[in-house]
């Protein structure tokens, strides 16, 4: 079998032992890799119904089919555990060398069970596994931890996935970080901390072989060349931050905690401004010929010296969303979250939630006491210093930061209980995961796409904003096409998330990003790597299966149709400015679209999956447990 070793590494932190599990080729043909295989491993190994911080919640890595080969943007892995934010599947992706090292160590996946009593880190050295004390690593930032581990082993090709101080402090939306990239959003970092696991280091020294290297190289060369042209220009020149101006113009740029969709100071926090004033260098993930990471630096002012990669989702969360029209404060906030290892989007939305609480009088100045400001401070929208201070307080769980570190769902619940307030109405999360940078009141297909999302408010898993923004659907209304549009868009995304490949390559196969443009090319890459005989339909099924196993996981953990919902604000508070002004998504519209979506998926009205559908996908054991 090429492309896979056929082996999953199991590590038990309680017993400090490890073993290898062999999987048959047919299993790989169904679960492939990335988020799909990671979720499947989670399905097989979790103690059903456990809390996310219970030792029975496993950490599941699944590598990519193309990791370690020259296939462009194929150096990625999936990571899954139950999410402490949502209580359902937390499936993340991260790019770069960690996946390549794991591939060369010849492990298709890693499942970490149990919990350690003392802080440790793991060293997977090809076939060996070491359990090492983490004393020297505690308190270090994410990149510092990686460098320290390389120093300890004296090998610059040792790659590590780590948690930073935010993870150690169990910020609920802490990330796992490797090579400056984040497995983000769903709170993996705090799950690792619940197991006292600081890092997983990997050294892989075996060569990677593929079924037909000449064909694979030929295909890779062509895609690499195409990736230097107009299909990726947006990502190469400005990165995704170039979306800022358009999002504001179109009226869906989250502003003042999603109160508005137009930001008055957007030009000061645009991708173009970033490029002119702050960009230092563009860097790439492993085996990526695009290079979209715009490393940006603050050169003067109170936040001078701060440097990190800036992209749209992070930028909007900490700038327009907090009303902050100061790029230096925005870079500082993203730097704090990246180096301490937390999700910038959830952090930004938690901060904007607190700012709105302050402006509406639910929280007072004295609620914001901290070492830096013993009398407290006034975090109005637009206050960059307040934004930076709150980011630090969340990282350190200092003062009100400890509450905001729980995410907006839990924070609002606690605040409303204590103060008899209704701040849940502006707690902008879906299933507990903070909303992404698209205000969905005037992107109605996307509103439903987010509502039904298996990991909560996430733009990576549902791509339904795309038809709304491009005008393929009328973004202000609903009609009977939306179920199919949303269902197919998330299955499309799931193909890339399962291989996994970065979606930025999607136009580079043939110039067309649709299924007809991309699937035949992806099938060729899979076949040259593995020797399989995949065709268009097989590639299409990758996405269907990936999404189905995630949904099945959630059903088994107790998901109900009423969980597929959007924040109160999107249903009741219309915006006042821009093209989206006056629009909301009513309960009636949402429920209508949800039913269309369940139907398009072939599910029941309650959103449950028929047995036959699961059996047809080759998931007989899943059908047995949750099929109807």
């Amino acid at each position, binding site marked *: 079998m090429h492309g896979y070793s056929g082996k999953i590494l199991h590590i038990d932190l309680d017993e400090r032992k490890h073993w290898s599990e062999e999987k048959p080729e047919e299993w790989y043909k169904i679960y492939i890799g990335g988020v799909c295989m990671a979720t499947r491993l989670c399905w097989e190994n979790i103690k059903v119904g456990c809390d996310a911080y219970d030792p029975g919640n496993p950490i599941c890595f699944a590598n990519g089919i193309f990791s*370690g*080969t*020259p296939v462009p943007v194929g150096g990625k892995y999936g990571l899954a555990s139950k999410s402490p934010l949502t209580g359902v599947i937390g499936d993340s992706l991260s790019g770069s*060398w960690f996946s*390549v090292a794991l591939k*060369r160590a010849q492990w298709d996946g890693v499942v970490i069970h149990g919990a350690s009593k003392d802080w440790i880190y793991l060293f997977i050295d090809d076939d060996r596994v070491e359990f090492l004390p983490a004393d020297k690593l505690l308190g270090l930032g994410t*990149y510092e931890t990686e460098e320290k581990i390389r120093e300890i082993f004296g090998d*610059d*090709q040792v790659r590590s996935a780590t948690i930073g101080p935010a993870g150690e402090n169990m910020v609920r939306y802490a990330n796992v970080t490797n090579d*400056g990239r984040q497995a983000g959003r769903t709170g993996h970092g705090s799950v690792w901390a619940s197991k006292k696991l600081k890092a997983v280091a990997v050294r892989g*020294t*075996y*060569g*990677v*072989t*593929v079924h037909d*290297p000449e064909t694979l*190289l030929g295909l890779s*060369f062509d895609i*690499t*060349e195409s*990736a*230097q042209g107009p299909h990726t220009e947006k990502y190469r020149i400005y990165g995704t931050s170039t979306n800022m101006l358009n999002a504001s113009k179109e009226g869906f740029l989250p502003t003042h905690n999603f109160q508005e969709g137009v930001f008055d100071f957007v030009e000061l926090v645009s991708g173009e401004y970033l490029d002119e004033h702050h960009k*230092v*260098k*563009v*860097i*790439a*993930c*492993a*085996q*990526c*010929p695009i*290079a979209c990471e715009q*490393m940006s630096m603050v050169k003067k002012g109170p936040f001078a010296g701060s*440097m990190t990669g800036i992209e749209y989702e992070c930028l909007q969360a900490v700038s327009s969303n907090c009303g902050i029209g100061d790029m230096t404060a925005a870079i500082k906030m993203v730097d704090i979250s990246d180096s301490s290892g937390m999700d910038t989007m959830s952090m930004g939305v938690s901060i904007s939630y607190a700012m709105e609480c302050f402006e509406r009088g639910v929280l007072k100045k004295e609620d914001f006491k901290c070492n830096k400001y013993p009398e407290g401070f006034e975090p109005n929208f637009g206050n960059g210093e307040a934004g930076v201070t709150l980011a630090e307080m969340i990282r350190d769980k200092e003062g009100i930061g400890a509450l905001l570190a729980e995410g907006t769902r839990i924070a609002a619940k606690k605040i409303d209980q204590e103060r008899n307030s209704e701040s849940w109405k502006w707690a902008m999360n879906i299933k507990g995961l903070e909303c992404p940078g698209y205000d969905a009141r005037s992107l109605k297909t996307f509103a439903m796409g987010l509502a039904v999302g298996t990991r909560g408010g996430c733009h990576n898993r549902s791509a339904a904003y795309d038809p709304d923004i491009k005008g393929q659907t009328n973004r202000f209304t609903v009609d009977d096409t939306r179920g199919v549009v949303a269902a197919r868009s998330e299955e499309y995304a799931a193909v890339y998330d399962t291989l996994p490949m970065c979606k930025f390559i999607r136009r580079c196969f043939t110039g067309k990003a649709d299924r007809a443009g991309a699937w035949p090319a992806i099938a060729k890459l899979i076949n040259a790597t593995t020797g399989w005989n995949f065709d268009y339909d097989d590639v299409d099924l990758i996405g269907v299966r990936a999404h189905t196993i995630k949904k099945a996981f959630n059903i088994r953990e107790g998901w109900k149709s009423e969980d597929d919902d959007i924040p109160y604000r999107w249903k009741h508070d219309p915006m006042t400015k821009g093209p989206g002004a006056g629009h909301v998504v009513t309960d009636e519209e949402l429920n209508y679209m949800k039913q269309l979506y369940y139907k398009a998926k072939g599910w029941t009205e309650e959103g449950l999956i028929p047995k036959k559908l699961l059996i047809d996908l080759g998931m007989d054991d899943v059908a047995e447990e949750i099929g109807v």
Partner: protein
Amino acid sequence: MVASTSKYKYIVCDPELCIGCQLCEYICSYTKTGEFNSYRSRIRTVRVDEVLITAVSCRTCEDAPCVRACPRDALTQDAVTGIIHIDPQKCDGCAWCVEACDFGAISINHETKLAEICDQCEDVEGGPQCVLICPKDALQYTTPDQRSQRTRKKLIESSLEFPQKAKDPR
């Protein structure tokens, strides 16, 4: 003392253009071993502080220190191309050449325990494969003289503003 680089051609990396994707390592190891493995690459990327990135391979020094350092005369330098050849029969992996190289361009193969160095793909059609695959044209197969010529030209182009004839009439 840093050895002087020379009249010979070698592979040079522009750190401003290098994005650190390591595709050069993939293609190098494949060309030499049939497998993709950075540990077997004769060109290596280096990254410091996340944003300082470049790639390094043999710089074909004149009167190469690695050749002089080898106690078993396993290393020889081609008088025409400057390429360093390592005789696997004579090499015993003592790594004196590794220590002698100011550029870190020699590595010990962890399987055979013998020294390995870039040979500019002298037997491969199309020349150095890393230069061909580099997506950003950060790698150049060049001599120091050619390199300085190009730097001068680039400097003039970027610092003087003259009306320019359209390069691509489309």
